[in-house]
């Protein structure tokens, strides 16, 4: 559906986007993840035609954005970081204006009513946009992107500045939209990609540093294996004994949760499964293993790994 090929964008000497390429299939919800200033917005602005790339191009459903920008733009609904709202219009006037601007051919009233019902803005339909709350403004921004029923939706940080309840609503909305549209959304909030996206593209310093679903990413970039063990016995001796085991890199005490037992965080080399030797060692010494939990790397850790692996998020 969308194919981005070697996009480069420079601002003066600074390279905001450096040779970014990726593909998005029809019906996918792709999360664009990266720290602030990583080039997410720039990439999206290029895709939507707001900016031009220095080199490289993108093809949207077979239409090259350089060869036929108007046709490409018609296929994209764009919600920029700051929703492009005219404060001096009512929601009705605004959506009618967008309808005209995009040159839509649907029955106007029904089309706009459907969108308003989907986004739940019927009750503010005749209010001035400047009098709306931030949450409603964001929704009107969404409605604007949906006018004309474009097959591709590009959403730049759609949940920024919303309260937790609104964030959940917007996420649900994106999931629902994902059934009919191909969605690219950018964010620096990890739970967001985890809860909404089928696929994640991590971008840092203008480059794609990882591309895949959440599971693959955690598996591939996870370095060491971490365990949390709850053990009954003497604290200092246990610690010492575990530290002496093969493959153990690191052990740390966690706060006590049960009387007479101690919790430890153990980190082992990726190639070694220390669960069996740990159990045997403890049994031999007469300590009791009360619980053992494997701590898979969270997406958050993966993200930090990827970003710092590239040499710091921002200069």
């Amino acid at each position, binding site marked *: 559906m969308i194919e981005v090929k070697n996009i480069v964008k420079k601002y003066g000497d600074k390279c905001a986007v450096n040779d970014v390429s990726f593909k998005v299939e029809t019906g996918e919800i792709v999360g664009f993840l990266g720290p602030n200033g990583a080039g997410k917005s720039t990439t999206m602005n290029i895709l*939507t035609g707001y*900016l*031009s790339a*220095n080199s490289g191009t993108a093809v949207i459903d077979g239409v090259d954005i350089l060869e036929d920008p*108007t046709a490409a733009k*018609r296929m994209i609904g764009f919600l920029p970081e700051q929703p*492009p709202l005219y404060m*001096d219009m009512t929601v009705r006037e605004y959506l009618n204006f967008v309808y005209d*601007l*995009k040159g839509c051919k649907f029955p106007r009233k029904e089309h706009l009513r459907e969108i308003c019902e989907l986004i739940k803005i019927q009750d503010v339909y005749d209010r001035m946009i400047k009098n709306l709350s931030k949450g409603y403004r964001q929704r009107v921004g969404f409605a604007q992107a949906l006018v004309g029923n474009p097959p591709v939706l590009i959403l730049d940080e759609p949940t920024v500045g919303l309260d937790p309840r609104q964030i959940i609503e917007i996420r649900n909305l994106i999931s629902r939209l994902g059934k009919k549209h191909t969605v690219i959304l950018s964010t620096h909030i990890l739970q967001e990609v985890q809860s909404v996206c089928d696929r994640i593209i991590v971008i840092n310093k203008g480059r794609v540093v990882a591309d895949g679903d959440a599971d693959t990413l955690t598996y591939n970039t996870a370095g060491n294996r971490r365990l949390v063990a709850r053990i009954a016995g003497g604290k200092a001796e246990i610690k010492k004994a575990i530290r002496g085991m093969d493959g153990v890199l690191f052990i740390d005490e966690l706060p006590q949760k049960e009387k007479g037992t101690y919790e430890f965080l153990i980190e082992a080399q990726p190639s070694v499964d220390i669960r069996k030797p740990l159990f045997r060692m403890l049994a031999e010494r007469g300590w009791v293993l009360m619980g053992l939990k494997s701590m898979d790397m969270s997406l958050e850790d993966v993200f930090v790994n990827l970003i710092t692996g590239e040499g710091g998020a921002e200069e």
Partner: protein
Amino acid sequence: MIAVWKRELRSYLKSPVGYVYLFLYLIIMGACFSIFNVARYNSEVSYYFYYSCYVLILVVPILTMKLFPEERRNKTDQILITAPISITQMVLGKFFAAYSMFLISLIPSVFAVGFLAVNGYIEGGILAGNYIAILLAGAAYIAIAMLMACITESQIIAFMMGFFTLLIFAICDVISTVINNSFVTKLVNVISITSRFQKLSTGLFDFSAIFYFLSITTVFLFLIIRIIDKRRWS
């Protein structure tokens, strides 16, 4: 293009800007008409339009100052540029919205002309020449002031730059009489709006003057389109 035109025109009619423009233009024109035509028993219709040509220098920038700076500040230019219309269509939509306001402000001139026709004598050719002149000059003024609005993000600066640029175009005749230099005189002959305006207002169908106004309008609109497009590349 029509969507942009409709939105801008609606915005003029719903915000104070449009009314400030109409109020200022009509009140100054009314005063000029009373002083120079009515009070002096002068039925020369060219006077009315000739003053109009100067008054517009002050009021046209009011009309154009918000066209681009406001969009850039509120980031609403994103919806226009990412919409399936060309930049040319967007710029023309804005231009015609401002021009429509200008046409609205010309309606009351009918009363002034009517008053002169009843109380004096108006030659049809001169009247037509004056209307052609003001319609063409208005378009050129709007295009020039729009360019000034397009290169800044502040409405105040857009107004000031529009005002001063138009002032230069309009009063350069005076400058050339003060500075007696052949190069300056030549330059002034090229850019002067007022000398062409006067030619047309005598009722002379001067094709070069008409061509001048049309080309000024086209060149400035073209520059605006280029500047907006250029911004996407830098």
